[in-house]
């Protein structure tokens, strides 16, 4: 069953897709968005291990439900497997990762190298972030780098892609083909600057943006109104960040400890009033998706279900945002299946063959 799915390279799932006119990358996410379909992205909880299976198992639960998976770059300044490493593993298996690049840990020399390396591995989407301060994480004694900021990082990637040059002006023999993303937070002060900041990001090169967790839909609606008035929704795809809250207690903890997440009192009250808070949190997330998907200018959702990844499929299913569409799903190839059918017993049967036996059966 090679190439039977849409957005798959017939020559192999790990290969980039055919270039298309008007597209800057050879990835799946850009195709989905440019076709005008409602995109779903999610975040992979990076493992604290050196076992590739940990990454594959965590990616498997999203199969057939999401269009791209964010490989986070030490989010919250906590140490995990690097985004480059996760992307290397995911691209091998045909997934469409969004490689996050944070400015906190790497200077411009390292970052430009990683952009080239990532693109060479087949990463089509890169998300340029400033990154949380080191004080937020498990190693507050680390040196914060912040050589570039998200804006100059976006511009650097755009220059590498469009002009085929490093920031220094030195030429690239093959420029990376990228779909560039950025983050927005419409819920933090200065509120009236936020839409203009999106404009700056678009000017710097952002083609899609993923927002911070949205729990305050009216606030997001006013933000989108301003963004539409400024004409930014035609230049950029907006994906709204959503996610289930596990309980009212976690919501309160997040509100006071995680910078930049705005949770209104009404949300906490609703969770507190519920019998099963976890279920209510999921329902709340679905309700928010149903509300934001109707806002014009919204091109998709970014479901962040930290440590509740198994709910992503249910949330996407129950909210019906895919409208019956099935995103790319990893399937076993027909020839692999044939080999497995005929020779699979070798793995499972407990046969001990001695050389003497082998010689006997050979004649």
């Amino acid at each position, binding site marked *: 069953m090679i190439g039977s799915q849409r957005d798959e390279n017939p020559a192999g799932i790990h290969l980039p897709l055919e270039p298309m006119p008007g597209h800057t990358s050879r990835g799946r996410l850009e195709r989905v968005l440019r076709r005008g379909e409602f995109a779903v992205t999610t975040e992979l909880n990076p493992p604290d291990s050196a076992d590739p299976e940990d990454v594959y198992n965590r990616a498997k639960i999203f199969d057939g439900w999401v269009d791209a998976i964010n490989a986070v770059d030490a989010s919250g300044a906590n140490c995990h497997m690097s985004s480059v490493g996760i992307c290397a593993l995911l691209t091998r298996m045909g997934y469409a990762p969004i490689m996050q690049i944070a400015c906190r840990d790497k200077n411009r020399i390292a970052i430009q190298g990683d952009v080239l390396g990532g693109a060479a591995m087949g990463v089509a989407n890169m998300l340029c972030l*400033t990154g*949380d301060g080191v*004080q937020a994480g498990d190693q507050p004694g680390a040196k914060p780098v*912040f050589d570039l900021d998200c804006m100059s990082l976006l511009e650097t990637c755009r220059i590498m892609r469009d002009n085929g040059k490093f920031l220094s002006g030195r030429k690239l023999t093959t420029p990376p083909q990228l779909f560039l993303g950025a983050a927005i*937070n419409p819920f933090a002060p*200065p509120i009236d600057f936020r839409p203009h900041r999106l404009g700056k990001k678009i000017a710097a090169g952002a083609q899609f943006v993923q927002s911070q967790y949205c729990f305050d839909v009216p606030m997001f609606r006013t933000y989108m109104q301003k963004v539409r008035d400024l004409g930014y929704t035609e230049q950029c795809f907006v994906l709204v960040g959503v996610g289930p809250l596990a309980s009212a207690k976690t919501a309160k903890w997040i509100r006071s400890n995680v*910078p930049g997440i705005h949770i209104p009192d009404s949300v906490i009250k609703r969770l507190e009033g519920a019998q099963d808070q976890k279920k209510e949190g999921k329902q709340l997330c679905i309700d928010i998706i149903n509300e934001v998907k109707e806002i014009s200018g919204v091109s998709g959702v970014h479901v962040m279900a930290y440590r509740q990844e198994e709910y992503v499929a249910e949330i996407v299913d129950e909210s019906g945002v895919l409208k019956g569409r099935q995103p790319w799903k990893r399937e076993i190839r027909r020839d692999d299946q044939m080999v497995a059918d005929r020779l699979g017993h070798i793995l499972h049967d407990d046969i001990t063959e001695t050389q003497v036996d082998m010689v006997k059966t050979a004649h």
Partner: protein
Amino acid sequence: MSDTQPTVTQATLVKKAAPKSDYKPADVSPQRRVQRSFAVRLWSVRHSRLLEWFYARFADMFLLLHPLWKGIGYGRVEGPVKFVEKRVKGFMFDCRMCGQCILSSTGMSCPMNCPKQLRNGPCGGVRANGNCEVEPDMPCVWVKAWEGSQNMVHGDRILTVQKPVDQSLRETSAWLRVTAQAAAAREAAAAAKNRAANTGASA
């Protein structure tokens, strides 16, 4: 025998002074947090329009003095000018001497005071009260920058995308660099005009 007192560090003082409920990030140097007062910096932001006007006149004056700087030599004058610039801007804006001043594009709020040194706008971590994510008792530099830029005539300069910081210009005088560049631009323009006039005359 020795009456060794337990050393009282700044960190201990901060810990005692701040209420227990306060969020205390571990990495922020307590020295910085104790010693800093933001009164002058905030005054500068509130009077950004006045300072913008003043800065424009000041830049013109520096450009007028270009022959003098050139006469003495920009290299030789760098030391004394930097000495003054560092202290004046240090007092007014808590300047960090990045050497590539963009105060006029950031509402007279120095972006290098941002713990992440962002030069293109606020990060997503700004607290609901408008304070910094990293230093909870400091007003976000970019919230102030936005306020300051609203007062200014060329406030929309805050919307231009700034290039990454050139670290090799640290601890050099931005005033002299801007003046030298303006003078060079003026000379180039004059030369181009001359050339145009000459070709016009010869034709």
